[in-house]
């Protein structure tokens, strides 16, 4: 099938609907991020999570009652994975942010259970640490974007660089938007996934740009639009194949990796899907809108050729 794709599809003809779609998705994401916000976990807000395993299926109501009687009325109690596992989430409270809280709750759970319970996981994040993680995470994304901007500007041209970063911002915003609209748990591992999406989407974009640059130098009688169209056609089978293999492993992670990396895998799946689309449309269209043309790419000549020795 890949053999027949070359030059057959006029991708750029669809760029206007694509721009409208992207703009709509970004707008929707931003609105959702401001109104519904992200369903951020304790990594960012501070608080405690306790996961306990029972030897048999367990009712939640007695646990809730017991917690309430001890003044933990606002604790969220739910099953996690199976009916014999219980997850308790404590939102941070002004006078209660202490690591000892989880000890207290574990003691309480053990008290009301007839069989010994197995403490599977305890996460406690102090409010200040939560703030720092939020800040560091945001900075990591920002610095990654800046570093990439500089490298691409240096290797290609500033319009490509802006196009690449536009595609990345597009991917990050929409992935965040999906998490916000569906109110999925947003924890530290999802942040890591977002950063991985940046890496992945960039990879895709660079491959397309590389071909655009090569074609600008080789094909002299065509308009920028046509050159970009040819380039996308030449790289589309690679883009789809790689996205497919990556999705294969991500789906394996999603279904088999366990609860803890569930959100991580989901974020990457969303990101890879959007990243594949954006490397085809967003990155190239942005570069085109910024007025990229053949003459821009002729100066730093030979660079690509010299590198081309495996």
């Amino acid at each position, binding site marked *: 099938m890949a053999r027949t794709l*070359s030059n057959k599809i006029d991708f750029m003809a669809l760029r206007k609907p694509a721009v409208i779609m992207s703009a709509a998705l970004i707008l929707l994401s931003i609105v959702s991020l401001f109104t519904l916000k992200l369903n951020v976990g304790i990594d960012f807000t501070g608080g405690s999570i306790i996961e306990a*395993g029972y030897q048999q299926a367990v009712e939640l109501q007695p646990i809730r009652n017991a917690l309430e009687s001890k003044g933990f009325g606002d604790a969220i109690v739910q099953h996690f994975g199976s009916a014999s596992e219980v997850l308790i989430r404590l939102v941070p409270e*002004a*006078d209660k942010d*202490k*690591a*000892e809280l*989880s*000890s207290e709750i574990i003691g309480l759970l053990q008290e009301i259970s007839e069989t010994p319970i197995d*403490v*599977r*996981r*305890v*996460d*406690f*994040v*102090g*409010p*200040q*640490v939560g703030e720092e993680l939020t800040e*560091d995470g945001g900075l*990591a994304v920002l*610095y*990654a974007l800046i570093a*990439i901007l500089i*490298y691409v500007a240096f290797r290609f041209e500033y319009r490509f660089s802006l196009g690449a970063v536009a595609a990345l911002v597009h991917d990050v915003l929409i992935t965040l938007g999906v998490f916000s609209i569906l109110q999925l748990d947003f924890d*530290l*591992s999802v*942040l*890591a996934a977002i*950063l*991985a999406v*940046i*890496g*992945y989407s*960039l*990879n895709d974009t*660079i*491959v397309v740009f590389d071909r655009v640059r*090569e074609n600008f130098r080789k094909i002299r009688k065509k308009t920028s639009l046509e050159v970009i169209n040819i380039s996308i056609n030449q790289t589309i089978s*690679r883009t789809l*194949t*790689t996205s*497919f*293999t*990556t*999705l*294969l*492993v*991500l789906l*394996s*992670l999603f279904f*088999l*990796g366990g609860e*803890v990396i569930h959100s*991580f895998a989901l974020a*990457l799946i969303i990101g890879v899907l959007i990243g594949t689309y954006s490397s085809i449309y967003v990155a190239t269209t942005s570069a085109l809108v910024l007025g990229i043309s053949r003459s821009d790419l002729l100066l730093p000549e030979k660079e*690509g050729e010299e*590198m081309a020795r*495996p």
Partner: protein
Amino acid sequence: MVNRYAPWRYILLILVIVIGAFYAAPNLYGEDPALQITHRVNLIDDAELGNIRSLLENEDIDYRSIELDGNNLLVRFDSEEKQLRAATQVREALHDSDRRYSVALNLAPATPDWLTTLNALPMYLGLDLRGGVHFLMEVDMGSAIEKSLQRAAGEMRGFMRGEKVRYKAVQTSARDVSIRFDSAENRDSARLLLEDEYRDFEFVDSNDDRSWFTRVSYNAAALEEERRSAIEQNISTLKNRVNELGVAEPVIQRQGDERVVVQLPGVQDTVRAKEILGATATLEFRLVHGSFAEWNSTAASGKAPIGSRLYTQSDGSPVLLKRSVIVTGDQIVGAASGIDQQSGTPDVTITMNSNGADRMARVTRDNIGKPMAVVFIEDKFEFREVDGERIRHRTTESQVINVATIRDQLSKRFHITGLDSTREARDLALLLRAGALRAPMVIVEERTVGPSLGQENIDRGFLSVMVGFVAVLLFMAVYYKVFGLVANLALALNLVLMVAILSIFQATLTLPGIAGIVLTVGMAVDANVLIFERIREEIRLGNTPQASIYSGYSKAFGTIADANITTFIAAMVLFGFGTGPIQGFAVTLMIGIASSMFTAIFGTRAVINLIYGSKQVSRLAI
């Protein structure tokens, strides 16, 4: 045209495969339940080894091996049940003679000797995979500084008295020590003397109608030094405490200016670990002031006589104690809990250092027949909201646990009683042995993973890597035929190399790290996809198979390099700015990018050349 690789390239490839396989091999062997025995001061020698061997043989506990490994004595067992039985026996036997032994449960890698002699070790698993506790603890610097100012204030009082300086009062606050004088002359002469003696301090003068003050505070360099030494002393105390808990391979590391990371692999009783690590409990010995009647009247009025302070006893009744301390907890070098012979209640036997012993001897000799009190001091924290901001509030709770009449001159060793339970006595003894924290610490982050969840994470991680891996292998074989199979060889080698590199550098493998490996598997094929698509294109353009292979590889190289370098930059930024799980992910991603460049380009080319390179081919199976 032919595609041939020089022999040295094949030699290099084979060398990499052999070395990679060698260093990845330790991961194939499992772990043995083991006991790790160390002594805090002495090295363990062969005689000790003999003792423990005969102990185990007497108790009829089979062990797999017993060996000396640097400072450690390592005993391996074939079941956890035997390991636990042995732990109880060995602990009892060793602690009878010397409390400084630490007996920790451990899982020792069962790597054969021929691998370990060349430093081939299995990957270092993070706490989320092996189970354990991770604490991030913050030193309360405010009270560290306050405490050291209090010490300095005490010294200054003594110094001024020695120099016959007339001062009115010395008062300590959180930031400075304020000394009050009744005239400007007295102050100025005192300041001259003090400035000369205390070079770490800055002096600021002030006065009101009747009094003249000089405010003494640390200068910038000394303040920095105080902070540094506070955190360092806390780290060494934490190390002692962790030793007392008996944890194998703990990590206790400074992070930033005010924080310490504590990682305790395999610890199951996290509640106790938390109590012991964060505990600030210590003791003070003070003389009792005044009479019973005076205590009650002070309790009613709230005004303690000069030189004394009001305390509460364990039954809630008031007692006045002298302000000056006989000895404090940091002068205690040894402590052991037990049962008091006379009363049958729990007690703690205390050993003082020579300074403390001297002072104790002097004070008790001069005060025979008078009562002395043991004060138990503990810092507590709570969060309060002040003007919309969270403030950590510290309160110090002091309780008099025991008032007893001095019958004899006390010296180096003595007993104290009045503790509520054997557990309290045991913990207090532990804390006194391990030394006090210079400043209180709070846990600001905790991540505990139980051993069952850890094993589950390993199993699930392994399964998802394998399933994803096989899915990609199948796809590649179907889609790119012979070339796909070659790419699969490269992918397998890539996985081996990643495991080998993680093992060599002993980088911590975490669950996000496994996710990074899975992602790299997906992305590593990208390089091959790029090359193969390029070869297909060249064939479509009508080039010969050999020329297509050649230009496919050379044209794709620039693209692969660009794409991988940018991703590598992103991973480096992640590593630099991220914490814990993000870093774990970034490490495997970086290693994966580097090794996949090698296997996907160099590795596949070598095999392709071998298959097609030197013969006439009319069609490529791609």
